[in-house]
């Protein structure tokens, strides 16, 4: 190929997508807009000027309290949950080489949920720090179960096996949660909203309790970006390039558990964010892990903040759980990806 032709090819490949810097500016702009809308919109709409005033010159009026003490922490939690679920989904899809992997589909979210519900009902735990630790434990056990299914048998982490095993695991864990709720009916009122994933009542103390885990997840995700990209070429190629697969996979699993567990502790088992977001991110920035993780954190945060606004506004003054909205957004993506798969008997 002549140098000119190669340059033309590069140009064409480059021009298929918008330049990265522009995408980041656009993404952050959209995120800021959505976050501000989340402060303004709700059961009662508050004038934008009033919302700004609540943040810079708090005067203790009912509207200012609603913005600064209810909607601001809620929006912050939505951003954190969305970003961590988006990144967890991208990491799972990369490490399992399976574009249907997602914390909610593979039962990891429900593992965290069961551990939290069991801790509250059976042992009576009510400290936020302990509950987050329990969520981590539950997510780890569920993740270990899924890894075991992937390692046992010859089918590996192939889509059908993994998704059906995840559905079975999720079904079992959900059934156990329901069993606990039936035994202890008093906890049902809180749990029936939380079980679908909700941001109602999210506050700064939740953020403080989960922040260490989110930080661990973010640091590991940043550190493993390059080896994970190499691993995408296949275990053999990666080994030849000096990247040992097992430690990278183990670190990725730790990051996934930290991010998914923290998001469940913050907002319950929100469905399908980790599935839908990486697909959108890949359409925008391509398959490189680094840009993909950045795009996933922005798009995930955007998806959860916008879904939460919809959850508050659609049936106002009633509130839908935000997980119902994300499931309705995410299910068509799941169906589309499943349908797109070529037939492999």
């Amino acid at each position, binding site marked *: 190929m002549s140098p000119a032709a190669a340059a033309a090819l590069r140009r064409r490949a480059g021009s298929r997508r918008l330049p990265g810097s522009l995408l980041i500016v656009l993404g952050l702009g959209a995120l800021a807009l959505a976050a501000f809308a989340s402060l303004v919109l709700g059961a009662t709409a508050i004038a934008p000027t009033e919302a700004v005033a609540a943040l810079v010159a708090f005067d203790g009026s009912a509207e200012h309290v609603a913005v600064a003490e209810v909607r601001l922490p809620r929006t912050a939690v939505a951003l954190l949950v969305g970003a961590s679920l988006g990144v967890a989904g991208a990491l799972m899809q990369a490490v399992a080489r399976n574009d249907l992997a997602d914390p909610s589909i593979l039962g990891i979210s429900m593992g965290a949920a069961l551990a939290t519900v069991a801790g509250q009902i059976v042992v009576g735990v009510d400290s936020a720090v302990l509950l987050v630790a329990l969520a981590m434990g539950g997510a780890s056990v569920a993740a270990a179960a899924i890894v075991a299914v992937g390692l046992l048998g010859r089918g590996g982490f192939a889509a059908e096996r993994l998704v059906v095993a995840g559905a079975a695991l999720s*079904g079992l864990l959900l*059934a156990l949660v329901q069993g606990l709720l039936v035994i202890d009916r008093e906890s049902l009122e809180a749990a029936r909203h939380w079980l679908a994933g909700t941001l109602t009542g999210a506050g700064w103390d939740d953020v403080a309790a989960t922040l260490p885990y989110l930080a661990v997840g973010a640091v590991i995700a940043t550190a493993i970006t390059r080896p994970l990209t190499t691993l995408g070429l296949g275990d053999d190629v990666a080994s030849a390039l000096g990247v040992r697969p097992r430690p990278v996979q183990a670190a990725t699993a730790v990051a996934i558990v930290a991010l998914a567990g923290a998001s469940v502790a913050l907002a319950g088992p929100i469905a399908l964010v980790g599935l839908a977001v990486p697909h959108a991110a890949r359409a925008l920035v391509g398959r490189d892990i680094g840009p993909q993780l950045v795009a996933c954190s922005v798009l995930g945060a955007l998806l959860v903040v916008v879904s939460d606004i919809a959850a508050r506004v659609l049936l106002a003054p009633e509130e839908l759980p935000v997980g119902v909205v994300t499931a309705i957004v995410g299910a068509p993506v*799941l169906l589309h990806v*499943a*349908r797109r798969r070529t037939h492999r008997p």
Partner: protein
Amino acid sequence: MTTRTALLPRRCARGRTRRTRAVIATSALLSLATLILTVGLGEYPIAPGDVLLSLLGRGDPSSSFVVSELRLPRALVAFGVGAGLAASGVILQGLTRNALAAPDLVGVSAGAHVAAVVVIVALPDLTIAMLPACAFAGALLASALVYALAWRDGGSSPSRLLLIGVGITTLGYAIVLGVISSIDELIHASQLVTFMAGTVYGRGWQELATLAPWLAIGLPLALLSARQLDSLMLGDDTAGALGVRIEAERLRLLALAAGLAGAAVAVAGPVGFVGLMAPHAARRLAGAGHAAVLTTAVMLGGCLVLVADAAARTAFAPVDIPVGVVTAIIGAPYLIWLLTSRAR
């Protein structure tokens, strides 16, 4: 042509006839024994002999009351729910030639569940007798949607069918959870959470009367379709050559599976994994002919739910945990074992 179609399944089955008969007879005895034993279990235990006397109308008044008014109808509903789900599973697995196709995996139970919950909440005055029809409509809609979405390039691949089924089930759960969290009365919500797990708590003669007609029509129809299922197992081309009108037959069988599972879900909620385990066990025991597999699976499914419910109502007595919790505890490891051993 007709002689061949008539001969084929029979010739396949000839070597197995004795074993098949033995399996069916054993399953029938097992069902009866399970019924008598589980009806005796509970806060007021009744010896199997007294249960039998009460069933024959010769027991003492107090145990007769407990048996005929409280435990027998609930046990029969449990058995019927298991039978309906198992029959639905046999049909779906034959139809798709996929051992993992079960009503709760390919979206049939989810469709029935969503329809039942929406109808219960939106139309509280509707009699329970109408509920199976609504659940049937929901199940049919969901399964047709799954089938249509899985259809590509002139066929519906088994793995796509499962993946899309999981997608539709996820969507169904989200809708149900949305409904549960948006209703006002807590008692109602707690009933719906139990229903979501699958329960036969408090089910009596009325619920049995609701379920029975669907089974009385659906099960014989399923048995009459056994030969078509046998032919479909040979592959579309062979089945077509044997004179089966494939797509029309598939649609009819799908409707039958939706009706059987829909009625079960309407009465007891989406009791999980029964439609997977009972057909699979029956196929291992009774061989490949669908008439024998169906008969065995119906009885095994019934026994499974019956035993699971006996465990569910006695394990944490006086609290009745939903029977679906017990079937999930048995069924999820079974399915995961099936997945790991199948791939080897």
